[in-house]
């Protein structure tokens, strides 16, 4: 997994609440058997008009969002389906971090598995970023996981929490399966204990 330490990039704002994974990557694109190539379908039904041209009314198509690598959205981002295609599509599009007041649990876990940093910021801080977005000019943010802080223009500065285990995995880009496989003796002992109790058939 690609480690995440610090990233500076253009921010795109999506001031919508309850953005579900069906919007992030609609079902017609879930039939691929690869992890890559989902970026062009990100937010498909919002992003394109019926004739396939970009929808000028969609936030990510605004000129100031061109080249964005940090997405700022409303609360409960990523709710709904467990599809990991959602973080795959965000990462494939070029996003390294998503900032929101809250995330759905499965989506949050899926981001952590892919080196895509999901940053929970206070509601007021996210509103301040939305206000920056309303100016219609491109702006950059810096997300620093080493010191759990987001900084930006006009003195924007906000801290965030992340559980120490997840944080370490991301900072070091660790392979979680490899970590668990190191616990083989404990797993085997658990299985023997349960078998002795007659619980594993």
């Amino acid at each position: 997994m690609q480690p995440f330490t610090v990233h500076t990039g253009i921010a795109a704002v999506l001031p919508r609440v309850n953005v579900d994974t069906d919007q992030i990557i609609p079902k017609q694109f879930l039939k691929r058997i690869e992890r890559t190539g989902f970026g062009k379908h990100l937010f498909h039904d919002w992003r394109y008009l019926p004739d396939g041209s970009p929808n000028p009314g969609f936030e990510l198509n605004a000129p100031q969002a061109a080249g964005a690598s940090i997405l700022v959205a409303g609360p409960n981002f990523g709710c709904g389906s467990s599809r990991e295609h959602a973080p795959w599509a965000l990462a494939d599009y070029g996003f390294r971090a998503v900032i929101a007041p809250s995330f759905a649990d499965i989506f949050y876990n899926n981001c952590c598995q892919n080196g895509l940093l999901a940053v929970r910021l206070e509601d007021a801080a996210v509103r301040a970023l939305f206000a920056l977005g309303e100016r219609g000019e491109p702006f950059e943010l810096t997300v620093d996981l080493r010191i759990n802080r987001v900084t930006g223009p006009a003195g924007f500065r906000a801290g965030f929490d992340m559980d120490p285990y997840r944080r370490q995995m991301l900072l070091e880009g660790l392979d979680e399966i490899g970590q668990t496989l190191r616990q083989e003796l404990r797993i085997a002992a658990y299985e023997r204990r349960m078998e002795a109790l007659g619980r594993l058939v």
Partner: protein
Amino acid sequence: MSEPRTLFQKVWDAHVVHAMPRGPALLYIDLHLVHEVTSPQAFEGLRLAGRQVRRPERTLATVDHNVPTGDRHLPIADPVAAQQVRTLTSNARAFGLPLFDLDSPDQGIVHVIGPELGATQPGMTIVCGDSHTSTHGAFGALAFGIGTSEVEHVLATQCLMQQRPRTMEVRFEGTLPGGVTAKDMVLALIGRIGTAGASGHVLEYRGSAIQRLSMEGRMTVCNMSIEAGARAGLIAPDDTTFGYLEGRARAPKGAEWDAAVERWRGLATDAGAVFDRSITIDVSSLAPQVTWGTNPGMVGDISGRVPVPAEGDSADARGALERALHYMGLEPGAPLAGLKVDRVFIGSCTNARLEDLRAAASVVRGRKVSHGVRAMVVPGSQRVKHAAEAEGLDEVFIEAGFEWRNSGCSMCLGMNDDVLGSGERCASTSNRNFEGRQGKGGRTHLMSPVMAAAAAVFGHLVDVRQMVRESDEPGRGDDMVRGSERTTVSAGR
């Protein structure tokens, strides 16, 4: 163990392989359900790392999400979908996993066949790359959805690293009125607490109204836990649970069964155990629920009206309401009853078990689907389909003008050909009314099977209780009243 514990805590504690200090726990997974859409990249990951599936016999694979529900003898027309189905078949073969493919009499929606086979059992940890894994919580199992990376993790290690969630008690008390079902209970809960209302929590459903539900009704309630943002939703196993499980293919037999039941009885939450949060809902005055918006929390009584955005209590709420009503093509303040529908879908892991089909058939029997409405029934599994046919339910639906199809996820998410056209309005027994969920531009109203059946007959949303009252044929109303109350079910034995 003197400290009183909740059902969730007992299941969690029994599966901790190793607890990291101040961190997550390594949790053992008893049963891993696998389907074609969220698994190919996980198997590919195993291959790239040269890893094996640790416990193939604790894994169960089926195809459900993108399979056609028409003629099973024809090849899958969509080449990309066909490749995904073939990929699961070859992965199951290569890694030695049991697979219920399109030709299997046990094929069906993964959350329908797990319980049907008796693979879902109390006290288990169950995961699947699908958010509606919460369904299995109806048996007192800790069951939750995971992403594809975690699917790979479980395949390789039979374990998962998990942060312990908080707990929330949801008490449903009272007696359900006629025409009101388990689906209405869970929709009312989501309407009350919102789609993020239970984020970070595991729910335990309790109370007299839960105890009186059949296993089918309990599965409907637990299924939609995720729509309230919950990690999982559990119900303590009792005689209803054991009655459902006994004799099923994968359930313990003989002395092992007796020992298992004794152990399972100990899973119920201890007196004095503490939940982090609690909510009580009285079901005695509950009305049939129907969603009007673009998430399952946007829901109300069928006797109610479309909300007025200007009355929203914040700018965010007003904006979200305006967006939703615009997408749904609804006028603020319009009554919900009377909204014309183009399509009716009776299916999905929420409401496509035998009891759901019986309830819908009781409304449809002797009536016709309204002119201009296309209505379909997609049984949750091939076993449900055959059991329904043995009772003649297929004829009831077909004579009324419904399509009677083969099992799969179908129009719940529209990955196969079963999709809404743009602007089409659908009465659906599924679980999500997100924009485009059932087809780009499609407009979904979630409701119970009896409500969807009534909408098919009238051609518009209608209060099914009206039909109960107006029914002049003895017995018909009773069938509907029974809805999701306890019934004897013979499917899957």
